[in-house]
C-alpha cells in the first residue's frame, strides 16, 4: 500500500472510532443540557445494550428483534436509574451528581460481569461481504453503518429540538428553568426522559459497534471517558460540537496510533482533555458547575 493509501486507511479508521465517540458524546451533551448531569455511565449503556443483543441473538432472535428489545430495555433502565439515583439527589451540587453517575457506571459494570462474565460476545456484521476498497484503503462496511447511525442521530435530534413542540419544551427548560416551570413544565419529568433517551441511544450505539469491537462487560469504561473528552472538546453545549469533537478525537487517535505508536492511542485522548482543560478551564468549569437538575 502506498503512503496515500496508508493515510487514507488511518483516516477511515479514525472516522470509525470518531463515529463511536460521537455517538456517546451526543448522548452526553443532550442529557447534560437538559439535566445538568454529565452522565459517566453512558459507556455502560453501550456495553449492556451490545451484550444483551448478543445474548438475544445467540438465543435465536433475529438481529432487528434483538436490537428493538435491547434498545427498549436500556431506555427503561436509563429512566429507572434516573428515578432511583439522580432524581433523589437533584438538588445536590453538580459534582455530587457526576460522582453518582460514576457510581452507577461501576455498579453497572459489576452487574454486566455477573451476568455475562469476561468472555467477549460478538454480533454479526449488519451487511455481509468483505471490505470495500477506496484507493487501496479498506473500509469496513460496518463503519459505514456506524457513521450512518451518527448521521441519523444528529438529524433526529436536530429535527426533534428544532421542529417539534416537545423538542422546544426541552429547549425551554434548558434555556430558562424558572420560565419553564412557570408555564407548567416539570423539569424532573424531562430529566427522566433524557436518561431514557440516553439509554436507548447508548444501546443502539453499542449494537452498531459490537461487530467491530466485540462486546465485553468492561467496554463501556474507556468509551465513556473518550465520549466525555469528545463532548468537552465540542464545548458541551451543542450537538454539532459533540460530533466534531468525536470525529476529531477518533482521527487524532488513529493517526497517533498509526504514525507514532499504538501505545499512544488511549493516552492521546487524555492528553487532549488536559490540553482543553488547561486551554479554556473557565469555559468548562463554568459549564459543569453552572447548571443543576
Amino acid at each position, binding site marked *: 500500500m502506498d503512503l496515500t493509501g496508508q493515510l487514507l486507511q488511518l483516516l477511515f479508521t479514525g472516522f470509525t472510532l470518531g463515529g463511536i465517540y460521537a455517538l456517546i458524546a451526543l448522548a452526553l451533551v443532550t442529557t447534560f443540557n437538559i439535566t445538568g448531569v454529565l452522565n459517566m455511565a453512558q459507556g455502560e449503556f453501550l456495553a449492556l445494550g451490545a451484550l444483551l443483543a448478543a445474548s438475544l441473538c445467540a438465543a435465536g432472535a433475529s438481529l432487528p428483534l434483538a436490537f428493538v428489545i435491547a434498545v427498549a430495555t436500556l431506555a427503561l433502565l436509563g429512566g429507572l436509574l434516573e428515578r432511583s439515583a439522580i432524581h433523589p439527589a437533584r438538588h445536590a451540587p453538580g459534582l455530587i451528581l457526576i460522582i453518582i453517575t460514576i457510581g452507577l457506571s461501576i455498579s453497572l459494570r459489576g452487574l454486566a460481569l455477573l451476568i455475562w462474565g469476561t468472555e467477549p460476545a460478538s454480533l454479526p456484521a449488519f451487511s455481509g461481504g468483505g471490505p470495500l476498497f477506496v484507493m487501496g484503503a479498506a473500509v469496513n462496511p460496518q463503519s459505514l453503518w456506524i457513521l450512518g447511525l451518527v448521521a441519523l442521530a444528529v438529524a433526529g435530534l436536530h429535527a426533534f429540538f428544532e421542529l417539534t413542540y416537545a423538542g422546544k419544551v426541552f429547549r425551554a427548560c434548558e434555556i430558562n428553568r424558572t420560565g419553564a*416551570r412557570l*408555564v*407548567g413544565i416539570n423539569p424532573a419529568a424531562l430529566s427522566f426522559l433524557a436518561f431514557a433517551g440516553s439509554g436507548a441511544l447508548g444501546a443502539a450505539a453499542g449494537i452498531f459497534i459490537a461487530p467491530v469491537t466485540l462486546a465485553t462487560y468492561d467496554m463501556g469504561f474507556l468509551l465513556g471517558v473518550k465520549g466525555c473528552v469528545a463532548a468537552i472538546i465540542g464545548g458541551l453545549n451543542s450537538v454539532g460540537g459533540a460530533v466534531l469533537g468525536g470525529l476529531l478525537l477518533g482521527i487524532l487517535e488513529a493517526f497517533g496510533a498509526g504514525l507514532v505508536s499504538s501505545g499512544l492511542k488511549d493516552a492521546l485522548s487524555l492528553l487532549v482533555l488536559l490540553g482543553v482543560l488547561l486551554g479554556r478551564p473557565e469555559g468548562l468549569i463554568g459549564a459543569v458547575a453552572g447548571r443543576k437538575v
Partner: protein
Amino acid sequence: MLEIIGLQVNHGWVRALRDLSLHIHKGEMVAVIGANGAGKSTLLGALAGLYKPAGGRILLNGRSVTGKPAEYMVRQGISLVPERREIFNSLTVLDNLLLGAYHHYRALKDAVREDVKRVLELFPALRGRERDPAGTLSGGLQQMLAIGRGLMARPSLLLLDEPSSGLAPLVVREIMAALADLKQTGMTIVLVEQNTAAALKVTDRALVMERGRIVLSGCSDEMISNARVQQAYLGRVRAARPAAVL
C-alpha cells in the same frame, strides 16, 4: 377567590414574609407597593409555587394549594409574569407564546392559535416579530412577550412583578393600558410596582408591604391622597419620573 392566611416564607435565614394575610376577590385588580426588599416578589413567587411556604395557608377558590409546585399552580389558573421576565431568549416570539400554553397545548390546539392572535391584538408592537428570537427584542417588547406568555396559560389570576421596570414612560403607558384592558375582561390581577403612581391609576385596591407584612391597604384612589403613601412612595416617584406617567 384567593385567600392567604398567615403566610410565612423564608429565604435561608431571611424571613421574607411574616404572617401575611390577604384576601383577593374575583375580578379585582390589586396593586402591591413597597420598598426594595419588602417581600413583594416573594409573595408573588409563593403564590406561583416558586417558593415553599414555611407556614400559613393559600386557598384558591376555597381549596388549599399551599406548598404546591409551580407546574401545579399554573394548571390551577395562577400565572406569574416574573420580575426578570424569564423568557426563552433563543426561541422565537411565537414559540415563547406557544410554550406559555404548555399545560393545555394538546387539548386546545385551535384555541391556542386564537390566543396567540389575541395576544398580538393586545400588544400590536409584537406583530411582525413572531419569527424573531425573543432575546433580540427590546426591553419593552420582551416585557410584552412575558405578559403575553403568561396570558397564554389562560389564567384566572394573573400576577405581574414590576412590568414597568426599566422601561420608557411611553412603553409603560402602553403596558398599563393593556393591563386595564385585561381587567375589563374580568381577569383577577395582582400588580407589584415600583412605579406607584402608574399602579394606583389602573388598580382598584392597593396594599403597602413593609418587611414581609402588609402595613396599609385601601382603595387605590384614596391611596393617591394618603399622606403616608405620598411621602414614602409617590414623592419619590414624582421626583424621579415626569408627570407624563400620571
